[in-house]
């Protein structure tokens, strides 16, 4: 169980990276949301317990997304690592409740998407269209609660904690 709880974060990020590469039949402008799905998992795990998600896993997942989507090598790995740092910062903020965590994610996502747009523009030495980035950020923001629920359910540590039953008077 201990091993599983250490592996689940890396596994979930890797699985979402794999899903981001597959041809889902989405319109090309809407497809930008897919590489942001692994970031949701990166933020979720890092904000809670950064020890369970090593940096090199984040880097390798970003690199594999770059390779298989034929993007420039290093783009998504850099964005994911920047997101990792942001999520570590979000973990420092004392917050309670899913609403507060969602707000923290939304603010991290807003910063990250601006970075992603700026990096794309810098890569091309031209201002690229910002609308796909904005839509992708909105979609990822909306997807966060559902995905966070799935990740929470998959986490053995959370499962073990919620299985405790209180007994009055002990």
């Amino acid at each position, binding site marked *: 169980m201990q091993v599983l709880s250490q592996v689940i974060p890396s596994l979930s990020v890797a699985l979402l990276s*794999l899903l*981001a*590469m*597959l*041809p*889902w*039949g*989405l*319109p*090309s*402008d809407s*497809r*930008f949301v*897919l*590489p942001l799905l692994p970031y949701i998992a990166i933020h979720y795990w890092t904000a809670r*317990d*950064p*020890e369970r998600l090593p*940096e*090199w896993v*984040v*880097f390798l997942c*970003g*690199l*594999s997304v770059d*390779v*298989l*989507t*034929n*993007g*420039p*090598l*290093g*783009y*998504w*790995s*850099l964005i994911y*690592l*920047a997101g*990792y*740092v942001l999520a*570590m910062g979000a973990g*420092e903020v004392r917050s309670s409740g899913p609403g507060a965590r969602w707000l923290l994610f939304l603010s991290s996502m807003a910063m990250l998407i601006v970075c992603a747009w700026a*990096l*794309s523009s810098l*890569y091309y030495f031209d201002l*690229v*269209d910002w609308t*796909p*980035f904005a839509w992708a950020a909105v979609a990822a923001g909306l997807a966060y609660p559902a995905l966070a629920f799935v990740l929470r359910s998959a986490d053995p*540590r959370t499962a*073990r*904690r919620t*299985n*405790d*039953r*209180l*007994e009055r*008077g*002990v």
Partner: protein
Amino acid sequence: MRYVGYEQLNLARQRASPPRRRRFNMVVPGLMFLSVALLVLSRMEHSYVSSVRWRITELVTPVLSAALIPLEPLRWAGRNATDLFSRVDELQRLRDENQQLKGWQWRANELERKFADLSATSKTVRETAIEFTTARVIANSSGAFVRSAMINAGRDNKVKTGYPVMSGDGLVGRVVETGPSAARVLLLTDVNSRIPVFVGPNAVRAMLAGDNGASPKLIYVAPDSEVKVGDEVSASGVGGLFPRGLRIGTVISASVPLRVKPHAGLDALEYLSVLFYESPALEMMSGDAGTNGATAATPDSASARIGQR
């Protein structure tokens, strides 16, 4: 299940999730520096980047192919949901189109008969049929950078760089990189794609240029030429990279820049046919360099140069 008291529970929770604060180390800055270095190398189109990319692609191709199998029901459901919304309009459109096509069928039969007569009189050599192989799309590009797709057929299946790629509806693009068991197809909407085309019944010459949007634009159109909405766009064969007459799309905007809607649904590609079209231009280029990514941009720039003449 175990039974615990409030205090025990609090203690257990504290033990289970002690406040973890990661100490700052140099791993993250180091990996970020590596990412930036890779990004710069990619921008410079370094050959090392291409070879690394293909090594990783070859490793992951079987995983992607396997991952597609359990996801197929999900994709099928998504496609059907989209179809359901557009089915009524589509039915009416198909009825109208069917009426028009019946007229065209009659004309085509007439023309075919005349063509056969004329060919017999002039003793022209008939064009040989082009062989092809069909492959499955296993990965798509996403993001602001490229419009490409990866297929599960490569050099082992006789696929070469530069070969045209079609779906059932029309031209999709061409192969720009090949590995032993996978190849990358540059879609005609990509910013690097340039295809010499004929537009409309007057066969106006132009160049179809992608800009990463859904509808590529027509450039180098003669100012006095008559191009109107609904005109068919097909490959002209100029430059020899594409066979003449391949269906591409229809003009959807008559204002500058003229836009073309591809017949092939580039957002939902599943199976693609790679045409084994050996063009003289490709043979010349393969003499200059190999079949890897380093030559990927060459056919585009070549066709662009040819088209400008």
